[in-house]
Structure formats: structure tokens, C-alpha cells
């Protein structure tokens, strides 16, 4: 108990000293986020400093063991770190699919050699990762993947095509699902392999989205050589690791409803845009009705996320709760942005113009439409709930 209080005091003091002032406000656009990598793009010197200082302490991955470069913090310490960062509104020093996704999978399933090779550069922000999962035409049917890896003794030769690979054009390495046994039943012939995006035969093409951004790519793999040493876990067991990663992804996406409500409250945004009446109520009573119903759901949802986390810690969790959180959280976030653009009216419709921040709001609104598609569609989550929780069908 005393140790934790000491830790809090030390952390607070260190953050006060080391977190640059400009890193103490929320990221407003993509360039405000630091993704690291071989050719890192820093918007400012402060951004670089902040990442390097945190990485040095392993605090970009606070709970990873120190032997792999992590912070080696206990759950309680990590929570204190988050709280103290929250207190000064410190920005995340490093956004990383390495930290969020492949890192945890390697810690759980990877060989010692793979951990030693890959985890420290992830913590230091030196290698940026992307995920090779979905394939064209497969959609939610992930297990139907066709990318083939042919065994050549010490290496595989991989051919195929991936789609929706986030920032593949900016990533250094890829964790990729491939079919190693074409004769096995769907899920049973899949393996998880890692390769450098600079390997000959890897090509990427950004996909332009309706929001105008291109965060995703098509990735073409033509006779790509992947060393067997880069196989995660066992051959043909990749589906197990994939499911673990998917659950992680789902939780990340379902957090969106919450993150959003952690920003400026929707009602404040609506009040700014639509005004308040003399009684201190939102000026448009019908909009107020809709905002209030959203707000209720958002608060009840935030409490539900907390409750389910707390129950999981207390060992009381229902399985498959992540499907429920993913479903509800993403639908909430879509509703939030529909209400936001309704409140902002014509201002929210401006795509390019001198004012209105380059169409940030309509682009963000359009972006939310993917929430209920990526990481398992809403329909897939509802199937999971009805089958795994309710036992229907």
C-alpha cells in the first residue's frame, strides 16, 4: 500500500518533469499520433522526446516484462500510471499494433527467440507492425482464407492477397495468417507467421475510403519467402492465436463508445452548436430527447464495461461478453456521430472550406460507419451472443 503511494508520487514527479506541455492535450488529428517505425514521422520535437522518454522506461508497454524492454509494472502500478497520465491529460506516447496486438500474442504463444527478437523494438517504437488477416471477398468469413504458404524445408513461400491491412504501406513488419494445410478443415490448416514488409514480393496499395483517408491497404504477396523461425507457436494452430488477437481487436474497437464519451460530452457539443434556452435546456426539444436517450445509453454502457471488467477480475465473468461490448459500443458510437452532425447542421456538411477544420467532423462521422463492420460485424457479434451466450440455434 505504501509502495503504491510512493510509486504514485514518483510517477507524478517524473511525468511533471518529462511530459512536454504540448503533449498534455488530446490528439486532434492523425498527425498528432505517434506510430514510430523505421522511418518515424514526428509532428514535433516534443512528440519525439515524449516517445523516447517513455520508451526508455519501458512505459510504452508498462506491463510487459523488463527482460523484453517493458515497464515490468504490476496491474496496480500500471493503473496508477494511467491515472497520473490522465490527470495531466498526457497523450499516448506511442500508438502501435505491436503493443496492442502482436506483442500480447507473442508473450502468450511465442517462442523465447521470437520474444527476444521482436518485443524490445516494439517497446522502443522502432518497428511498426501491420496485420494480414482479411482477404478480398471473405468479409466476416475469416477462416475461409486462401493465402497459401508452401513448405520449403526451412522456409515457406507465400502467395496470396490481403485486404484491410491497416497502414500496411507504412508498416515494417506484418503478422499474417496463412493456410499451411489446404486439405484440413477450414480453421485447422491455418498458421500465424511474421515477415518483414521489405521482403521481395510484398506490395501494398492504399484503399481510398469514403472519409477520404486511406488507412487501409490491399497487400499482394507474390512468392514471399518467410523463414520458419518466424512461425508463431505451432504450425496449423494459427486459428487459436487469431481468435486471441480478434478478441483483443474487438475490445479495442468496443472501447470507442467509451472513449468518445470521455471526450467533450455530446450534450456540450450540441449545446455549443444548437444553443440553450432560457431554462438552461437544449434549445431544440426533439434533439434534446434524442441526445438524452443516447446519453443514458452511453452512461449505462460505460458502467457495463466497468462492471464486466470488475466481474472478470473477480472471476465471475460471462464468456463472450466482448461480443456484447463490441456490438453495443460501436452502435452507440455511430449514433453519437449522427447526433453530432445533426446538431452542427450545415457546418458539419462542409468538406473543404476555409473554416471547419478541413471537414474533420464529417470525416469522423463517416469513419464511425466502419466500427460495426471491422473486427467482426455487428451481425457476427449478434450471432455470437445468440449462439454462445443464449444457446440459440
Amino acid at each position, binding site marked *: 500500500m505504501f509502495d503504491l503511494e510512493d510509486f504514485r508520487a514518483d510517477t507524478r514527479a517524473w511525468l511533471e518533469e518529462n511530459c512536454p506541455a504540448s503533449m498534455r492535450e488530446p490528439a486532434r488529428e492523425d498527425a498528432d499520433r505517434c506510430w514510430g517505425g523505421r522511418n518515424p514521422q514526428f509532428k514535433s520535437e516534443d512528440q519525439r522526446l515524449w516517445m523516447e522518454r517513455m520508451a526508455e522506461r519501458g512505459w510504452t508497454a508498462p506491463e510487459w516484462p523488463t527482460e523484453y524492454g517493458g515497464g515490468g509494472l504490476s496491474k496496480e502500478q500500471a493503473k496508477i500510471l494511467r491515472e497520473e497520465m490522465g490527470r495531466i491529460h498526457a497523450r499516448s506516447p506511442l500508438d502501435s499494433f505491436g503493443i496492442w496486438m502482436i506483442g500480447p500474442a507473442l508473450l502468450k504463444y511465442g517462442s523465447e527467440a521470437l520474444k527476444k527478437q521482436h518485443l524490445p523494438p516494439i517497446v522502443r517504437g522502432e518497428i511498426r507492425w501491420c496485420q494480414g488477416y482479411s482477404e478480398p471477398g471473405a468479409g466476416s468469413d475469416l477462416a475461409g482464407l486462401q493465402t497459401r504458404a508452401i513448405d520449403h524445408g526451412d522456409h515457406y513461400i507465400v502467395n496470396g492477397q490481403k485486404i484491410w491491412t491497416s497502414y500496411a504501406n507504412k508498416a515494417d513488419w506484418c503478422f499474417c495468417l496463412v493456410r499451411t494445410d489446404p486439405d484440413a478443415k477450414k480453421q485447422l490448416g491455418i498458421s500465424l507467421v511474421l515477415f518483414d514488409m521489405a521482403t521481395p514480393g510484398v506490395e501494398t496499395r492504399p484503399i481510398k475510403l469514403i472519409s477520404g483517408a486511406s488507412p487501409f491497404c490491399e497487400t499482394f504477396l507474390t512468392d514471399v519467402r518467410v523463414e520458419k523461425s518466424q512461425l508463431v507457436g505451432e504450425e496449423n494452430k494459427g486459428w487459436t492465436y487469431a481468435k486471441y488477437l480478434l478478441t483483443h481487436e474487438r475490445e479495442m474497437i468496443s472501447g470507442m463508445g467509451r472513449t468518445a464519451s470521455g471526450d467533450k*460530452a455530446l*450534450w456540450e457539443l*450540441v*449545446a455549443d452548436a444548437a444553443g*440553450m434556452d432560457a431554462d*438552461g*435546456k*437544449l434549445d431544440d426539444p426533439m434533439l*434534446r*430527447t434524442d*441526445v*438524452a*436517450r443516447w*446519453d*443514458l*445509453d452511453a*452512461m*449505462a*454502457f460505460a*458502467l*457495463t464495461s*466497468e*462492471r*464486466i471488467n*470488475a*466481474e472478470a477480475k*473477480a472471476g*465471475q465473468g460471462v464468456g463472450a461478453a466482448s461480443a*456484447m461490448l463490441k*456490438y*453495443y459500443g460501436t452502435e452507440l458510437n455511430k449514433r453519437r456521430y449522427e447526433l453530432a452532425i445533426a446538431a452542427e447542421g450545415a457546418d458539419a456538411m462542409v468538406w473543404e472550406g476555409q473554416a471547419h477544420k478541413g471537414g474533420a467532423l464529417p470525416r469522423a462521422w463517416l469513419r464511425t460507419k466502419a466500427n460495426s463492420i471491422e473486427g467482426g460485424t455487428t*451481425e457476427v*457479434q*449478434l*450471432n455470437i*451472443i*445468440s*449462439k454462445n*451466450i*443464449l*444457446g*440459440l*440455434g
Partner: protein
Amino acid sequence: MVNLVLDDDARMLKDSAERFMADKLPVKELRRVRDAEDADGFSRDAWAEMAAMGFAGALIPEEFGGAGMGHVAMGLVMEAAGRNLSPSPLFATAVLGVSAVTLAGSEAQKADILPRVAEGKLLLALAVDEFRRHRPSQVDTEATPAGDGYTLRGAKLNVADGHVADRIVVSAKTPDGAVGLFLVESGAAGLEVERTVMVDSRNAAILRFEGTPAVALGDVGAGAGALAQVLDIGAAHLSAELLGLSLEAFERTVAYINERKQFGVIIGTFQSLQHRAAHLFAEIELVKSAVLAALSALDEGSERTPLLVSLAKAKAAQVADLATNEGIQMHGGVGMTDEYDIGLYMKRARPAAQMLGDERFHTDRFATLRGY
């Protein structure tokens, strides 16, 4: 930060409350009192047993003979009652009446009333509403000082268990315009009680006061503040009841569609029903959290209590509507028959959702408390 996980004690209580309600006050019991046109509308024997279990005095401090269990614990009893549609004075006496006396009563009044309630020997009721929809600010009933006490003139509607209560707590306006709480004895002069059977086969009364003698419950000046707390407590426990009711209606419906065949196929395999059921599951999960947060806030005396209570009541009311509507629709024709229980869940859902403020009342209050 409200507590959102039940500890072991609470989980044991939950089990025993659920067992008690399922054994002693199942839906069959509601049918029995309904079909017998029971004058009380509940079994006094069962109430005595509930007193023995500690439910009657759950919210009464130990010094006055109660169990002092707190709201999270009492909410579990209400949830179990909701699951079984158990008819009893639990809500009117042990939640509303007890809270009013505990929060507003003088020491002497507490010592007089609460131990007897805990023993199951005294029934209470709370008379607030004067309009068909909950409008706590509308108080036209007048309390005029008379001797040591007051006389009341006016009328109250929708008084749960008003037909059997031994003591009735009444909100009324004093000559200076302030709202206070007053205690009326059953059978008092000038008190007219009109019993009404509601859609859920429970009883509510219309009370008319025509110069009815009453005494102040504690300090008249503190009545309005206490009443606001009592209304929050009542709304939170109705939310817990609605949660139990929604859960049970949902589980019965899922079980039904998982058995019932149509066109030779189990209807629970139809994806449109599956998705609707999955959505309802998610909504009920939200109600669970909101109800627990509201009850925890009451126990902790959190200043966010009114906000969380309105959250719980609005959400519980909305989802109980959905759960019972979907319940009947998914049961199909048999859902419309009196023979199946699912209709009884719908008939309880609406009055419980309306009492002390419906979905719209609490959504509006929530928005106002949030600052917009």
C-alpha cells in the same frame, strides 16, 4: 466510484431471496390472490415469513429491530420479487414506508413504528401522487395546524397498498406553502379509501382527506428533502424489480423459442429472432449495471444518486417494455392467453415502469441533472 460487483454475502442473499420467492411467492401465488379476489391482494402468512427472513426490516436500522442490510442487498430481494411477480407489501411497506419513517421520522416515531414493521405487524403506504402521471412537485393537499397536530384536506391517487396500510405517510402543503410529510392512521376520521385493482392485479387506492387528523412525520420543514430521497429510493428499487422481471421474461422467452417448432424447425434457429434476442440481452446487461450503480450510490450517499437513479429507472422502464413486448410476440398466439405467464409479466411491467416516474420523466430529469 460505485461498486459494481456483488460480494459473497450479497450473492448468498441473492440466492436465498430467489429461492424464497420461487418457493413461497411464485407467479402461481399472484394468480391465486387474483382469482380469489383476495381482499388484501397478498398472503399475510407469507408476509410473516418474509419478516422472519429479515426482508420486511431489510432497510430498517438494527437499533430499530431491522437488518440494516442496505440498498444493494434489498435490491436483490426486489429483483427476486420481480422475477416471480411476487405479491407482497415489500415495496409499499419495506421500501417506501420504511424509508420515509427512517429519513423523516422523529426518534419516538421510529421507535414506535419500525420495530413493528420489522416484525411484519404493521403495514405502511406512501401517498404522493395527485395527478395521473408522476409529478412530485404538484402538491395541492393541504395540512392545517390543529391542536398538537394537523388536519388534511385533499386527495391522493395511485397509493400502492393504500387499502391495507395501518399508517400512511402523506405529502401535503402547510399554510406557508412548504411541503411536509404527515402520518395518518388507517380508519382515521374523514379518510375515505377507495380500493382499485390495477392491471397487474395489485392494489392501489385513491385516498380522500376531508379534515383527516394527522401528525407531522418528524420535523415538517425537513419533509421535502426527505421525500426527495424517498422517491429516489423507491425509483431505484422499482428499477431492481423491473430488472428481475425483464430477466425472467427474457429467459422464459429464450427457452420457449428454443423448444417451439414451426414449419418443422425450432423457431429459435431463425436468425431474425436470434438477433432480436441478442440485442435484448445487451440491453438487459445495461440495465443490470445501471440498477447496481443506483443502489450502490444510495448506500454510499453519493451525490450522483439522483442522476444514477434516473438513469436506472429510465433504462429499466424502457427495457422492460421491450422485453415484455418481444416476449409476447415471440410466444405468438399462446402469449396472448391468460394460461401462459408471459402476459402477466407485461401487465406488471407497465405500472412498475410508470410508478414514481416513467421513462420520459426520468430521461428528462437525467438530462436536467446532466446540465442540459
